[in-house]
């Protein structure tokens, strides 16, 4: 296999904010970088995000997600990063070998360093009727309205009040749909309160301690039953409400998309706070397999801002290990980034994530 393989230096899998930032940083240091994404455009999650981003200006806050994606892609191209779109990485094997597929052709690449920045996938939620057409991931609904400009439903029940649930609800309203209600099983709202306030001002009730009981309909969703839950998350009898709805959006969390890391044989750590099993990594974003690095949601579900910083860390560490930059210079750069990451991981949610990341570095 190694004989027929195409030689590359640094290969980045995934063209979201983490992968793009890693590719840019590695190319700046002088490495030859190849960036691979399965979509027909780079940007990852950013391409669906039409809202102004939260965070600091250093992290391009206030700029709309899709514009951030465009800026990063341009920067990568200006640095001569080789961008392979419509290309899936289906396997990562020993000695830096990668299996890719494009235009129905399979090819094998061999790389000196690999950055896995594959992001996260949406969690499903099962309840009677959850497989009916008209039940979909919130991200799916977002893809339909913002990319394809088609409404997948008009009367919507959103399940989950994290930032994804809140933001997608807002975007569904902007696209002309009606969001009947957002239900949240916990006694408090999961996302930032500014987003929740905005949604409430537009007349959408956000019901905490509520869940979806079932979706009904012959061939597609026609009715949805929601109910209040008690302290043990058990539905309270008599509190059921039946709503006429044609779309249920699930925004119940994301899980690191780490198949390639499993395949490569990385060691893992389970973290509820970071979304599930995450590949163990150190502060250089290096996994238990020395030439393999991770960054962004795949190394723990967070935000685009942290994904970009982690990508940069990996880019610097990879090129440092290849001898493109001195240890001294690398250390200086990495310290600045670590400080920014610390600043980003503040507040009630951030603090928790910071502790979890520290735990991972320690176990490593």
């Amino acid at each position: 296999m190694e004989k027929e393989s195409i030689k590359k230096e640094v290969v980045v899998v995934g063209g979201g904010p983490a992968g793009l930032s890693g590719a840019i940083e590695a190319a700046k240091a002088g490495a030859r970088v190849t960036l691979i994404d399965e979509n027909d455009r780079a940007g990852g999650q950013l391409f669906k995000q039409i809202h102004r981003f939260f965070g600091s200006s250093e992290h391009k806050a206030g700029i709309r997600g899709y514009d951030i994606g465009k800026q990063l892609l341009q920067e990568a191209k200006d640095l001569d990063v080789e961008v392979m779109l419509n290309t899936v990485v289906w396997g990562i094997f020993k000695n830096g070998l990668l299996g890719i597929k494009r235009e129905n052709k399979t090819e094998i690449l061999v790389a000196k360093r690999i950055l896995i920045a594959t992001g996260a996938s949406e969690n499903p939620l099962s309840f009677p009727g959850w497989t009916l057409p008209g039940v979909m991931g919130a991200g799916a609904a977002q893809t339909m309205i913002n990319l394809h400009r088609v409404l997948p439903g008009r009367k919507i029940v959103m399940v989950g009040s994290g930032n994804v649930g809140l933001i997608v609800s807002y975007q569904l309203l902007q696209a002309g749909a009606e969001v009947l209600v957002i239900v949240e099983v916990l006694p408090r709202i999961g996302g930032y309160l500014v987003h929740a306030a905005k949604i409430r001002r537009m007349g959408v009730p956000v019901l905490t301690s509520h869940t979806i009981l079932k979706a009904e309909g012959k061939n597609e969703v026609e009715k949805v039953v929601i109910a209040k839950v008690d302290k043990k998350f058990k539905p309270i009898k008599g509190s059921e409400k039946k709503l006429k709805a044609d779309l249920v959006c699930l925004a119940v969390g994301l899980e690191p998309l780490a198949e390639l890391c499993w395949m490569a044989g990385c060691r893992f750590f389970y973290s509820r706070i970071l979304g599930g099993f995450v590949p163990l990594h150190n502060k250089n974003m290096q996994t238990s397999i020395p030439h393999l690095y991770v960054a962004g949601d795949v190394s723990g579900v967070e935000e685009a801002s942290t994904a970009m910083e982690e990508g940069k860390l990996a880019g610097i560490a990879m090129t440092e290990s290849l001898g493109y930059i001195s240890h001294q210079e690398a250390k200086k750069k990495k310290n600045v980034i670590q400080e920014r990451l610390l600043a980003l991981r503040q507040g009630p949610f951030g603090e928790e994530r910071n502790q979890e990341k520290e735990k991972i570095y320690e176990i490593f």
Partner: protein
Amino acid sequence: MNERVENHPILGKAKHGKELTIYFNGNPISAYEGEPIAASLAAAGIKVFRYTSKNKEPRGIFCAIGQCTDCVMTVNGVPNVRTCVTLVKPGMRIETQKGLGKWKKKV
């Protein structure tokens, strides 16, 4: 039925590709070049894309990014095509798939 978002407060007016016709179970549907089959069908209000083999349960779009295979249909005689990541072509014949589908075309 038209479920298209033609005007959007942030994205502006929709920029469509060339208009073309595809066929859903034999019926003509208008579509735009550059969009996936699932988008054209959803725009026409179609939600059921296939029925499962065992329990004959309906399925439709679930992830919209090619990961779950819920949206597979028979396209030009070829079963199990993920319609959310397959772009429309003029004259395409799209059929609701029953179970694992049947090959109608020799390849």
